[in-house]
């Protein structure tokens, strides 16, 4: 994670376009100014950022399923549960499964596990729109490389 750049996930481990699932890894940084406020003397990963991490995980799944033709924008959140505290330095395993790809929207379920234990889950809805401009799309392609997005999955799927 690079919290200061709002990058909440580190690596895409697996993208299965047949099952419409994704597996992602992320490590919570050991230091961040965020922990100075949340909370002094008791640093915790903010729940809203864990939700964003699930949104980014599911978002990359949607980008894969739509073969990089649509940009998913986070639109709605349901049944979000933050089940355990997450501390600096912890390794997280994130996953998402597409529930439905509609016309101009997609719905997915996402989860976060730590040491095999479910710590967060939610249902997320995205609006799907064309990439707003070439610069935006180029930056997303660059981020895809950073996250080791398996481009070959698009050719196979």
């Amino acid at each position, binding site marked *: 994670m690079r919290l200061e750049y709002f990058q909440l996930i580190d690596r895409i481990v697996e993208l299965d376009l047949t099952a419409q699932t994704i597996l992602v890894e992320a490590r919570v940084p050991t230091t961040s100014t965020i922990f100075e406020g949340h909370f002094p003397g008791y640093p915790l990963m903010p729940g809203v950022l864990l939700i964003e991490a699930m949104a980014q995980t599911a978002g990359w799944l949607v980008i894969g399923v739509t073969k990089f033709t649509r940009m998913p924008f986070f*639109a*709605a959140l349901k049944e979000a549960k933050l089940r355990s505290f997450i501390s600096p330095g912890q390794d997280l395993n994130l996953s998402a499964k597409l529930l*439905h*790809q*509609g*016309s*101009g*929207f997609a*719905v997915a379920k996402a989860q976060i596990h730590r040491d095999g234990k479910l710590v967060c889950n939610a249902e997320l*809805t995205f*609006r799907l729109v064309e990439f707003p401009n070439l610069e935006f799309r180029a930056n997303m392609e660059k981020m895809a490389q950073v996250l080791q997005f398996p481009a070959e999955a698009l050719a196979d799927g």
Partner: protein
Amino acid sequence: MPSTFDTVANIISETCDIPRDTIKPESHAINDLGIDSLDFLDIAFAIDKAFGIKMPLEQWTQEVNDGKATTEQYFQLSNLCTRIDELVAAKGA
């Protein structure tokens, strides 16, 4: 088996917390019922699931934006139900 309209009206009522008896076939989802685009995503998700279809919302929106169709043609509930029936029939064809 409930009619297409009953299924759609129940979905709208539950999704948007609108009293079921105020939802009529002549109701316009946007102008009369005040459903916004985000709520309509929830409704579309539920309708797609209930009927096993994929409503072409992007195409409909484009047609309205281009002046080729009116919102009444797609978002007045009786018309919406006709579109749904057509999509269901096309799926089975």
